[in-house]
């Protein structure tokens, strides 16, 4: 196993996307990305660790600001090609505590410490001779180097750049920091490994680690979506009202509360999935979930000691039977068990007729019971599919987004079709079976197993959607 940890300094002109590349590769949206040149003032390390094991380090650096002047200083001291790396080191030592070449010292110091070079240029703008001084300095370091042509804007001068960069750098790649797919990022890491034989093994392990982490995120995302589906199918809002209150007075507020619960639940799932992919407080631009037009309210039920009417009657009957039985026992059965029979009937009947009165009785200032108004759960058969489509679409957008993108997350389009269009009949039937089972399990005795089975189905739906529209990873 190699004991050398690969280190790469991301260097180049200011404002050419160095920080965007670092942000994308490190999945860190705390990296400041700004159109103002010189935003990065200090080098900053992004170590990639699996547990405690350090596999590689990316270093974001400030851009060259006085490349020609720095090169001029170095050229004055050059004796031969072999002296160049040492001269670069001397340059850093000479100027690191001064203001004159602050940026150059920041970006060259990691190179003189053995880091590889990842040189970034903007391939959407034309090549210019002003880049040659800094490329020459980088060549003088003697470090393994790769150039990345970052396509920031709409122009395409990649070929022009490639011709120039190929004369200075071992490997030249085109890479779009804002939109590059996950697989391409892994390819880039593998390419780093080609720069130095000793780096190949840790970078391969890094790639494997990132791949399995990606799978873990997908599995977790499926689970979060399945939990959302389960909750949405079972969410209800209840409100206890007095026996003399008119339920119509409370329906509107209860409906708003119910809708709020649904939206909050969906938003919570979104937040969890975004957090899973290392996004924090992303601004989202999407259409709100709309409820279908259905009657969500259920009839009032009696609430007495937490029992509904059926349970109350049963409890009353059992209680009456117990009292009747004790009478039978006391008289030695002389009443031919009539006590038990009558007790059951009386107990049950009294539970029916007296529960109104009992509900009004207060114990310690609190009424014994009353009515309960309930909104939900939704029984619309399409609703879970709408939700599933939205959730899968959101997941696909997040999974393919890069951390260099700083605009609001836009989720648009016919997200319901996203699911229904791509779902096979077999899968849809499996979902329907699960949804039906969840709706029927009103005491949630099978919640955990249902969620697990749903998660499997969601994973299959993710795979089907990706294979139908092209990979998003």
């Amino acid at each position, binding site marked *: 196993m190699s004991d050398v940890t690969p280190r790469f300094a991301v260097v180049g002109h200011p404002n050419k996307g160095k920080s965007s590349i670092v942000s994308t590769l490190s999945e860190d949206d705390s990296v400041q990305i700004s159109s103002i040149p010189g935003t990065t003032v200090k080098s900053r390390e992004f170590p990639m660790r699996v547990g405690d094991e350090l596999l590689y380090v990316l270093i974001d650096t400030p851009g060259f600001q006085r490349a020609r002047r720095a090169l001029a200083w170095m050229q004055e001291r050059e004796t031969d090609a072999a002296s160049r790396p040492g001269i670069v080191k001397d340059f850093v030592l000479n100027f690191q505590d001064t203001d004159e070449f602050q940026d150059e010292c920041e970006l060259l110091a990691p190179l003189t410490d053995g880091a590889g070079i990842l040189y970034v240029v903007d391939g959407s703008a034309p090549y210019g001779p002003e880049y040659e001084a800094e490329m020459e300095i980088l060549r003088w370091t003697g470090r393994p180097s790769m150039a990345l042509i970052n396509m920031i804007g709409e122009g395409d001068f990649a070929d022009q750049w490639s011709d120039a960069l190929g004369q200075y750098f071992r490997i030249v790649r085109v890479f779009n920091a804002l939109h590059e797919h996950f697989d391409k990022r892994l390819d880039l890491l593998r390419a780093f490994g080609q720069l130095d034989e000793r780096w190949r093994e840790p970078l391969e392990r890094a790639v494997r680690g990132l791949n399995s982490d990606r799978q873990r995120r997908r599995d977790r995302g499926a689970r979060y979506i399945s939990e959302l589906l389960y909750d949405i199918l079972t969410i209800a809002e209840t409100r206890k009202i007095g026996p003399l209150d008119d339920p119509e007075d409370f329906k509107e507020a209860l409906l708003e509360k119910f809708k709020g619960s649904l939206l909050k639940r969906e938003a919570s799932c979104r937040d969890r999935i975004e957090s899973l992919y290392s996004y924090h407080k992303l601004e989202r631009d999407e259409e709100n979930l709309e409820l279908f037009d259905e009657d969500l309210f259920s009839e009032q039920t009696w609430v007495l000691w*937490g029992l509904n009417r059926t*349970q109350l009657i049963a409890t009353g009957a059992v209680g009456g039977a117990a009292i009747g039985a004790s009478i039978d026992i006391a008289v*030695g059965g002389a009443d031919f068990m009539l006590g038990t029979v009558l007790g059951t009937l009386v107990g049950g009947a009294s539970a029916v007729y007296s529960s109104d009165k009992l509900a009004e009785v207060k114990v310690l200032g609190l009424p014994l019971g009353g009515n309960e108004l309930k909104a939900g759960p939704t029984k619309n058969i399409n609703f879970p599919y709408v939700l599933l489509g939205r959730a899968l679409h959101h997941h696909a957008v997040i999974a393919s987004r890069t951390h260099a993108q700083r605009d609001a997350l836009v989720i648009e389009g016919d997200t319901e079709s996203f699911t229904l269009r791509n779902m096979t009949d077999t899968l849809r039937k499996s979902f329907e079976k699960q949804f039906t089972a969840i709706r029927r399990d009103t005491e949630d*005795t099978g*919640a955990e197993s249902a969620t697990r089975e749903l998660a499997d189905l969601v994973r299959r739906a993710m795979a089907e959607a990706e294979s139908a529209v092209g990979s998003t990873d």
Partner: protein
Amino acid sequence: MLADLVDLGPELEKDDALSLGDRQRRDALFADSLPGSPDTAQGTTQDTYGPIDRVSAWLSHRLGDDETEGDRVARGRRVISVLLALAGLLVGWAAAMALFRYDGTHPVNVMWVLAVFVGLQLITLILFLIAALPKTASRLPGLAGIQQALVGLSPGRIGLALTRLLPANSRHALNAFIGRSTKNRRLFGGVTRWIVLHWSQVFALMFQIGAIVGALSLVVFSDLAFGWSTTLDLGANAVHRAVSALSLPWSIPAPQAVPSLELVETTRFFRLDPKRAGDIATANAANLTRWWPFILLSMIVYGLLPRLITLVVSARRLRANIKDAIRYYPGTDELLDRMSGNIIKTQAVEPEVQMPKPTYHELGKVETAGARASVVDWSESGLTEGSIDKLLADTLGFSKGQLNVAGGARSLAQDQAVIDAVVALKDGPVVVIVKAWETPMLEFLDFLRDLRRAAGERRSIVVVPTGVEDGAVAPARASDASVWAERLETLGDPWLKFKAVTA
């Protein structure tokens, strides 16, 4: 552990204000202080120093020693358990008083005693077992409905009503928890179900203890006479066989507690024949008491012991459900990942150093048209000479006096030569054309400072960012132009002017 479940949600919600990096650093640091090997988020809910223990330790660390909402809920639950235990004890004792009542006429009917303290207990035990069947078994048709009804009818539900008797803070905390549980049944459904079932076992066990204590006290402090009576056509042999079967568990360790055939034969009584009852009482006074070891052991073996087991089972199931709820609570996975050693981290460890805010000075206004300008094409913009003439005329109203090229691949000495050439022409503005899409580097600002020093104050220097397309002038992006303007404003040169070629 219930306290942990209650406190977990609010604590995780507080993290919304922290960045992912801050959370990661905080929790990784805490995890390093924990004893034992790191565990992954895929750990089981076994009772080892695993995921649940790590969450519990994290909560203790976060919450400190102050009483929490979770503590109040746990305390409330314990108080209700005690109340149910007392109620069970009382009801059991009262039932024993009623069933073992002997007024000297008819003996205590062993059949009734067995029916209530053994038969009924076994029936309710079976009902509990049905209600407690695992979730996978609840898939049997109709079983889920029966389970729901049984949990609904469970005496443990009285515990929910007893919250009214709790002190205000415990009552509010417990009611809030019940409210949260109702809203999030997927997570909490199992927990509330097993709280109710556990309470029911507390009541049932204490009922049995109360009954045994009541029965024992009557046996010890009064003289009871036992017999058996039934309308059914059962001979003594059949009854003897039945009681012998019931006595199997103690037939070897306590054979004296197994009713003999003689005892069965001699203790049957009929209420219709008071003479016979009296004869039994007179002839078999000592015999009539010999049923009590059998009765007591029946109450213990078939009433008390199973309830001890179901109490332990329900406590364990409750604990397991609480652990599952904690394990699958939204946010727990992420917390465990942060504390785990197996997480992949790629983010920066240190925060970014902020760029110091520069001081901006207003740039001067471009002079009126007609001047002859010295032009510097910085970094070989790519404009043809004709385009440069056109740019001067259209954008500034100037004509070209001389044209020099500086920057780019040229040396510093060549830049200095350009400055010397510009200065040689003592009058007229200096126009520096730059590529709008490139950023203004310190190297360019150095050049402007050197030019200013050489040209003297008051000589107008105009920086013109422009786009270039096929050698001709193209409009610069507004964002690029503003970057240039902002950079130049930091120089504090009142005779420095700026004019971008924009759309």
